[in-house]
């Protein structure tokens, strides 16, 4: 029973504790606002051993403060103000910055108000174990709470609050530690106000509060050298004023005030959306807005107006006359701007700048007349609602260095080129530029002024040497925001205390924890698992047997993760935040600690494991007679790979129970699949390749090949689909408001327009997209007898036109949009992989509640909570897929390099592969190498004839065939041969797959 108390808010304090005022809203309504505040004396100071403040469970600040700083020999605590966090977050986050810190509520709230991403980073910091940060709720402590005075701006009020809190801390420390008689006066630590605001410092000094600027503070620290680099550009303004910025040429239009933006968006005059740069052309970007079916096109640097990928921007539309079609040209930032000087760029009278502008406008002028039908709404960015800046993985551009002497420690301005093609170069100042060459580094954007062509940022940390696997892997994880820190202690504490010696207790008296309660004993059932080779986290197992009545009992047994991961404990929160396990080629970032994932939950053979089983009775024609769900204990009899299972099934000599049950399962699966296909399920293809690794240690890739699919793959898949659909129906029935389901919306028809057009013009084929069934049928007809891979290629391209599937909460969308387009199922969820997907864990909990096994946790009754969790899971899921793909790409690159070297040494020349053209540009073609599953770009330097309507490009013949004027026509879907090599970019040291056309024309000379 909790103790309920009534807070007293004395009438005499009403002046500070309650506020009533009238506010005018944006719509002009007058609203009465009531706020009160309860001041308390039990807000702890957070210093260890303080005799007045109650000890709390949270980690406290050391009693002595920090003794390592030069200026404060008696020990100190830092108390930073809001701006320090807003501009110097990387400094604070650095491992070297270890001063004990007091974070005021005022500051925390101001940070939250100003920037949510920064706030989230700050929150993460306060929780991290290697930081010593105490959050002091000064607004609730009676001594430090203040009211805004008349004629005081909110900022001044906050600053005053921060000063008062600092002063309070200092007196609090001296009061609680009075000098002991007879002893020398003990040295008391000081609380130091850290602020960049000179005026604030002055006021603080007047009040006798010790204060310091960030730079000065850092200079006195042990690791001053490294830390100084982390200081962001924004903060150093008042310290070393650069050239008068008024003298600079303004390159970008100013943003409109935010009130105008909001009003404009409301009125429908302006449009709001995410900025999405074109990866092929850095001078072009798009913003998707609901008002138009096509995204709004932004052409040119000025119109993109300092937007960076992911920013939420507001766009003004041009007149329809000025609407353009997206260019068909590849414009590479590096090629065009190679000579731009980092130090000078953006200064007035800079010849270089004019040259750049001229060059860029030339690129833009190449615009030819395009039919109006292809024109897209075109506009310009007039404001940014929310920046979505984070840390980016970059390389230092070696040409931008003024001095490459590694000994040179002078500060220089250099360019950092982000790995992602979607981002602009970032200008940063560093002292360690030479040592950063050939390194992958993390850079944050601080600001982007109208006078600066490039955004300005600062260095965060290095990830390692370029192409070293560690650095590449970490950069990959960072790029896709995959949380990869090892599990903390609080999380590991949630594991069973027995560790890996945990076993299912014997049934009966030995079962002290009541694990057997309501569990079915399925240990005698012949269960086996079928997985890819080397699979450690086995989360599903199957069985089938004939029933006396001629029907077949089939069971799917899923690891009972929800038995170990209880709702709302640290492990659960961490799993929810991670959302999914991320599979990279040589690594796996687990969602759950490996003790669970690869041991206790993994349905390994010959051991007893807890499972959640779905058991059907099916007719021999695979019609469901009934289904039931139960928690169970199973003992898997075998763990097969797909290949082993296949061999076993096909071996007519084997007649044991296990083999027969596989055959039984297989026969059912075939029928299930046929039914599904008949219902209109799509058979889509995506380029999946397999990387052969040399050995576990070196993990050098040897070769790449496309994954092979066996019958048994589809066996497992069919039963998983069956389980998922059955479970989805059950939980939706039990929890119509909060069931966790998965859906795949039908793609809008317009997505297919281009593909349909290409197919019609080049191959004379049609694609019927009226329904998933029709699409499946027409895809089956897209066959080029001479080219078996063509069908797969069309499927891949069709897949790209579709939307991606997503998790959702059943109460939040209309029932008629529940369907899964690709699977042609009216309802679907994910139940079968709780070890590696968090949504499955939620589904397990809901199913357990639906069958009355355990009550549903309160959070799963709350629609908004489920929605919030699923949003994260959806995003993580997407990111994980992208990270996985990027990892494959990296390894393919490495493998190619290896292969190239081998063949070169043998004198066979470079790697050549067959490829298909999938896209044509004015000056190049996009190709897809199906064997390697990679896409590449071939550019031509010489002029070409481009026919946008027919998706063809005519390339003049190579030197040998120079006589023919016509040149060679290349169109989409044409088969070509490309030479693939891995080339290091001279500037960035970034390994890059370079493709050149060998057939039908040799583009090396072009």
């Amino acid at each position, binding site marked *: 029973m909790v103790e*309920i*108390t*009534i807070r*007293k808010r004395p009438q005499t304090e009403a002046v500070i504790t309650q506020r009533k005022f009238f506010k005018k809203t944006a719509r002009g309504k007058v609203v009465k606002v009531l706020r009160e505040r309860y001041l308390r004396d039990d807000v702890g100071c957070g210093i260890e051993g303080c005799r007045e403040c109650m000890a709390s469970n949270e980690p406290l600040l050391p009693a002595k403060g920090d003794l390592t700083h030069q200026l404060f020999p008696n020990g100190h605590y830092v108390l930073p103000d809001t701006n320090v966090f807003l501009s110097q977050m990387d400094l604070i986050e650095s491992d070297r910055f270890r001063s004990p810190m007091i974070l005021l509520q005022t500051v925390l709230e101001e940070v939250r108000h100003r920037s949510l991403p920064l706030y989230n980073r700050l929150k993460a910091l306060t929780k991290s174990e290697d930081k010593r940060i105490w959050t002091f709720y000064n607004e609730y402590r009676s001594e430090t709470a203040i009211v805004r005075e008349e004629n005081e701006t909110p900022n001044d009020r906050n600053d005053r609050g921060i000063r008062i809190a600092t002063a309070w801390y200092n007196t609090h420390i001296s009061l609680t530690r009075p000098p002991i008689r007879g002893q020398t006066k003990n040295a008391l630590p000081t609380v130091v106000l850290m602020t960049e605001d000179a005026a604030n410092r002055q006021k603080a000094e007047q009040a006798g509060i010790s204060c310091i600027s960030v730079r000065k503070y850092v200079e006195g620290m042990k690791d001053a050298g490294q830390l100084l680099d982390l200081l962001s550009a924004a903060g150093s303004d008042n310290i070393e004023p650069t050239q008068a910025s008024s003298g600079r040429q303004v390159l970008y239009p100013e943003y409109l005030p935010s009130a105008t933006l909001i009003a404009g968006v409301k009125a429908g005059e302006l449009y709001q959306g995410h900025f999405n740069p074109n990866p092929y052309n850095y001078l072009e970007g798009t913003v998707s807005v609901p008002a138009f079916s096509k995204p709004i096109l932004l052409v040119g640097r000025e119109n993109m107006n300092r937007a960076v990928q992911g920013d939420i921007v507001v766009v003004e539309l041009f007149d329809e006359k000025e609407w353009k079609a997206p260019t068909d040209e590849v414009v590479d930032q590096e090629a065009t701007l190679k000579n731009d000087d980092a130090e000078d760029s953006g200064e007035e009278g800079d010849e270089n700048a004019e040259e750049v502008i001229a060059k860029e406008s030339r690129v833009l002028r190449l615009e030819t007349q395009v039919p109006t039908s292809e024109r897209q709404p075109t506009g310009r960015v007039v404001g940014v609602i929310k920046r979505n800046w984070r840390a980016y993985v970059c390389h230092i551009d070696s040409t931008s260095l003024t001095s490459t002497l590694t000994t040179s420690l002078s500060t220089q301005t250099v360019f950092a080129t982000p790995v992602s093609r979607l981002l602009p170069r970032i200008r940063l100042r560093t002292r360690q530029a030479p040592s950063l060459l050939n390194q992958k580094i993390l850079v944050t954007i601080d600001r982007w002024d109208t006078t600066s062509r490039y955004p300005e940022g600062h260095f965060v940390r290095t990830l390692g040497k370029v192409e070293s696997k560690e650095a590449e892997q970490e950069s990959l994880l960072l790029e896709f925001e995959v949380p990869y820190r090892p599990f903390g202690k609080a999380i590991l504490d949630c594991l069973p205390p027995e560790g890996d010696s945990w076993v299912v207790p014997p049934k009966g008296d030995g079962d002290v924890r009541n694990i057997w309660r309501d569990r079915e004993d399925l240990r005698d059932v012949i269960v086996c698992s079928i997985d890819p080779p080397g699979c450690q986290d086995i989360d599903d197992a199957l069985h089938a047997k004939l029933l006396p009545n001629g029907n077949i009992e089939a069971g799917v047994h899923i690891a009972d993760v929800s038995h170990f991961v209880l709702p709302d404990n640290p492990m659960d929160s961490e799993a929810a935040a991670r959302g999914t396990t991320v599979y990279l080629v040589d690594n796996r970032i687990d969602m759950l600690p490996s003790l669970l994932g690869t041991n206790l939950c993994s349905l390994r053979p010959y051991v007893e494991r807890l499972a959640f089983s779905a058991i059907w009775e099916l007719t021999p024609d695979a019609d469901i007679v009934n289904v039931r769900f139960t928690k169970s204990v199973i003992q898997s009899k075998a763990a097969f790979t797909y290949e082993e299972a296949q061999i076993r099934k096909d071996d007519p000599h084997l007649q044991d129970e296990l083999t027969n049950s596989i055959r039984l399962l297989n026969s059912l699966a075939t029928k299930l699949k046929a039914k599904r296909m008949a219902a209109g399920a799509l058979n889509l293809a995506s380029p999946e390749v397999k990387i052969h690794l040399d050995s576990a240690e070196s993990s050098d890739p040897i070769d790449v090949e496309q994954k092979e699919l066996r019958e048994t793959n589809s066996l497992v898949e069919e039963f998983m689909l069956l389980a998922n659909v059955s479970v989805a129906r059950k939980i939706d029935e039990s929890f119509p408001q909060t069931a966790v389901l998965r859906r795949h919306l039908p793609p809008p028809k317009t997505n297919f327009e281009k593909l349909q057009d290409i197919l019609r013009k080049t191959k004379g084929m049609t694609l019927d997209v009226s329904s998933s069934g029709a699409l499946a049928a027409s895809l089956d007809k897209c066959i080029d007898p001479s080219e078996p891979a063509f069908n797969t290629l069309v499927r891949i391209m069709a897949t790209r036109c579709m939307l991606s599937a997503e998790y959702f909460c059943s109460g939040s969308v209309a029932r008629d949009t529940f369907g899964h387009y690709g699977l042609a199922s009216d309802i679907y969820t994910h139940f079968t992989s709780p070890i590696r997907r968090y949504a499955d864990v939620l589904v397990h909990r809901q199913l357990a509640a639906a069958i009355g096994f355990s009550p549903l946790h309160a959070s799963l009754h709350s629609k908004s909570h489920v929605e919030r969790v699923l949003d994260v899971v959806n995003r993580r899921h997407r990111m994980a897929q992208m990270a996985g793909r990027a990892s494959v790409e990296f390894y393919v690159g490495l493998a190619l390099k290896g292969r190239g070297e081998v063949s070169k040494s043998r004198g066979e020349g470079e790697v050549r592969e067959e490829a298909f053209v999938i896209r044509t540009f004015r000056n190049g073609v996009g190709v897809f190498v199906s064997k390697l599953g990679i896409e590449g770009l071939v550019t031509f330097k010489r002029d070409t004839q481009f026919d946008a309507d027919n998706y063809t490009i005519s390339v003049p013949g190579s030197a040998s065939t120079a006589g023919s004027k016509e040149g060679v026509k290349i169109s989409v879907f044409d088969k070509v041969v490309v030479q693939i090599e891995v080339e290091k970019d001279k500037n960035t040291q970034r390994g890059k797959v370079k493709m050149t056309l060998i057939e039908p024309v040799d583009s090396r000379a072009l």
Partner: protein
Amino acid sequence: MIEFTSFRQKPETLSVKHPEDVDMMDLDEDEDFLEIGSSKITYPGEYLTSSQAFMRGHGTYVDNEEVIASVAGTVERVNKLVTVRAVRTRYNPEVGDLVVGRITEVQPRRWKVDANSRQDAALMLASVNLPGGVQRRKLESDELQMRTFFEEGDLLVAEVQAFFPDGTMSLHTRSLSYGKLRNGQLVTVPPILVRRLKSHFISLPCGVDLILGLNGYVWVSKHVKESEREGEEGFDAEAVYSNQNDQIDDSTRTAISRVTNIITVLASHSVPLSDTVLLEAYEWSIEQETDVKNLLQDEIGEALVTSITARG
């Protein structure tokens, strides 16, 4: 204004002065609320005692063999009967009580009178004295002209005669001292503040008469000279049902207002009314030379109450 700091704290005692010391009999019980002199205050739903040993009275009910208070007030015990007297309540009539009331409705052969009770009282035509003497017989014509005697809004003083089976009380004015009221002003106070006195007709020396209705309605009027009392020679029998006020001089008007305000002030401080208290208060206000209307100001009112209670 009461402020709680915690739920655990007992509800603070309300600042109510008790009209009477709780009169207790000798005790053979150990329950301390029944001790002599202790004025235990109850709240609704509070357990008092076991129903096997005691009988429940007003303000209590029995549930599960327990006597439980149903109102907030003081516990009283007469032998085996336990009652709770509510701190504030509507008037609970008893036969013989003197009440002041107001006519709300004229019905066949009866008037309905608001007497601050749970239901309006009935005044039967048969229970009033009609002009023309005590012995006069009621005629059918009297039934038709009932409004000439009392009409809606008229104030009267009467005595509780009996109760009807449904609990409504029946009044009578068959005494010369009862009847229609005029030449004065009505003040309402909580009924509990009017004690049962020897006489509820009080004449203050300042030329003001008071009728303290037990139902909390107090009539303050111009003094009627001894000679003009009913039965005396100056008694004007015709004026008994008159709706006209007599001439009242300014000093009397002031005195009436002063007494009215004193009663209001005393009532708001929960001081029980009696002739002595009123007299003292009147004298005090004359001594202070305060203006009549100033009496209603908080400070002066409080000063008045302190001086009265100090003396009493």
